[in-house]
């Protein structure tokens, strides 16, 4: 394989594997920006993967599967919103239980679906004109699917909303100082509900992408910790969608490149790599977070009750 093909494959595969990471990270950034830590990403994602697969299998339309995954992910996230915003429960524990519940339910109801081939999946497309562009063409416009583009388009959109619109200011102020936001007439609880819901929808779509686009199949626990890596990437990204994109694709590239070591190292070592990477990237950015607490919303994981604190 020539070095040019080698680089093109690396980039193209990173784009494909980075998509669920990116979608999940964007969603978690919104939830955390509003002050709600949602550790249930893994649970929402696997529920998305399960519901997308079964819908696509029964109805025969993978896009409907993605839609259902979005709805299921969103609905699932509302459990966490209810516990952490309305009941003011501990967000770490609530998120953990969401993950357990998601893994449990999808494992229980998904058992009969194990190993079934999916006849229809999200098609890979090639944009005939653009794919001829040297280098960038084969990476961006050959063999990717629409969800990959959706994730890329969401980055500037969500960045713009967060930093350049009134809605974004509202979200960030709720995450930084809910009491101040409240005194300005902002409905803190509603903003948090909406942001957690956005996180759930995107995690659901990310899961759906895994089961009807990336590798069209259902296996128990197929998200394999991606939801947790998303939480790490959110910190890595300093809660900024643009860095989120950088982190997701960089991580995906590392993951892909580690598989190039296949002839020399054992498969167990390769499987452990992404988790070690997740710790390493956090170590890498730790100086920034320690020195300035860069980006971390001040009220992250703190429930808000009017008249207290």
């Amino acid at each position, binding site marked *: 394989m020539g070095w040019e093909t080698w680089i093109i494959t690396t980039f193209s595969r990173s784009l494909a594997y980075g998509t669920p990471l990116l979608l999940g990270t964007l969603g978690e950034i919104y939830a955390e920006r509003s002050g709600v830590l949602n550790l249930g990403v893994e649970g929402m994602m696997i529920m998305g993967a399960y519901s997308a697969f079964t819908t696509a299998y029964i109805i025969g339309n993978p896009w409907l599967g993605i839609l259902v995954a979005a709805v299921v992910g969103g609905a699932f996230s509302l459990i966490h919103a209810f516990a952490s915003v309305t009941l003011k429960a*501990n967000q770490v524990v609530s998120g953990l239980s969401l993950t*357990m519940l998601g893994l449990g339910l999808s494992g229980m109801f998904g058992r009969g679906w194990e190993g079934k081939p999916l006849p229809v999946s999200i098609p890979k497309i090639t944009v005939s004109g653009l794919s001829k562009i040297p280098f960038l063409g084969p990476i961006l416009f050959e063999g990717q699917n629409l969800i990959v583009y959706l994730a890329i388009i969401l980055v500037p959109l969500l960045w713009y909303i967060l930093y350049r619109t009134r809605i974004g200011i509202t979200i960030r102020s709720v995450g930084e100082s809910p009491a101040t936001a409240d005194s300005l007439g902002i409905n803190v609880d509603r903003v948090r509900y909406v942001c957690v819901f956005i996180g759930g929808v995107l995690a659901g779509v990310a899961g759906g992408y895994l089961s009807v686009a990336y590798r069209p199949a259902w296996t128990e626990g197929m998200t394999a910790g991606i939801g947790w890596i998303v939480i790490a990437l959110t910190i890595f990204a300093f809660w900024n969608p643009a860095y989120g994109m950088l982190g997701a694709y960089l991580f995906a590239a590392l993951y892909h490149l580690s598989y190039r070591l296949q002839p020399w190292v*054992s498969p167990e070592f390769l*499987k*452990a790599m992404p988790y070690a990477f997740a*710790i390493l990237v956090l170590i890498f950015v*730790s100086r920034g977070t320690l020195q300035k607490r860069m980006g971390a919303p001040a009220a992250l994981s703190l429930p808000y009750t009017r008249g207290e604190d």
Partner: protein
Amino acid sequence: MKRRVGFKVERRPVASGRVVFFVSLLAILAALVVAGIFFRIYGVSPIRAYQLILSGSLGSRFGLAETVRRAIPLLLCGVGLTIAFRALFWNIGAEGQLLIGAVAAAGVALFSGLPGPLLLPAMFICGFIGGAAWGLIPAILKVMLGLNDVITTLMMNYIAIYFVEWLIHGPWKGPTARGFAYSDTFPRAAWLPTLFGTRIHWPTLVLGLVLAVVMYIFVTRTRSGFEIRVIGENPDAARFAGISQLKTTLLVMFISGGFAGLAGVGEIAGIHMRLLGPTNISMGYGYTAIIVAWLARRNPLAVIVTSLLFGVIMAGGDVIKVSLGLPFQLINVFNGLILFFLIGSEILLRYKISFLLRR
């Protein structure tokens, strides 16, 4: 005269033990009802499922023994987690610490060549150290670099899982295992004694019970125990009082990781007598222990009760798995629901709702 019925919500200063008990009970019952709905959707009668769970765990000598056997690792991991959670260190990594404890003990059993009577004590000591070391890594990363403890402990679980996989497929794969991914069987001197005809490896059980009591005394009666509580409840006050975050965090994770390591030793020296696949060694004890510790309200003594409760669920889960054909993932459904209702109901501990009859 008009009679009005209303209710009043007031803040409760501190919930009494009785209130905590009834609220917890209510939460568990609510979780069981919702789990029953899922059984129904799955096509299994919830009443039959719960009957089977009860008869399979408490209804026979064998069932009772299995309940206790399941409770042993939950007890050890759970007691350790109460200590970590008290300092608000989110140790989600008991699963990995348990596995590394098992690895360390297996290494001693297979390769140390120690004489018989020294073997088991050495396994427990090395298992403790292994688990503690695995737990100290995220502790150091948190205190020194500010890394999120939930993520690091969780990622280290995955790393531990693949480490065990590598050992049993590679260097430690037993020549006598006939191609299976196991280590060789341990020498007889490395087997823990069990209560007659059961799989209750009683030395581990006794160890767990003793440690629960010791840890209760530790957190309620010693200076270090007090410091742990201050760090968890009011980090600012702890800083002003000169309590070392570093020392306390390392201490709680040394204990928490070490106890999980002991649980791993018990599983491989009491049940399997060899190192085998990570999901066979643990089946999620480390995760279930999080709920065990939380349900015990971070009280080490109460873990004795809550670990038995989850022993019932796990042993009963085994039975309905076989007789109703339900997948083992069911345990996660129970775990998730119970944890949800538990933290959801905590609002009832903070607020008192009283019904009033006004004239």
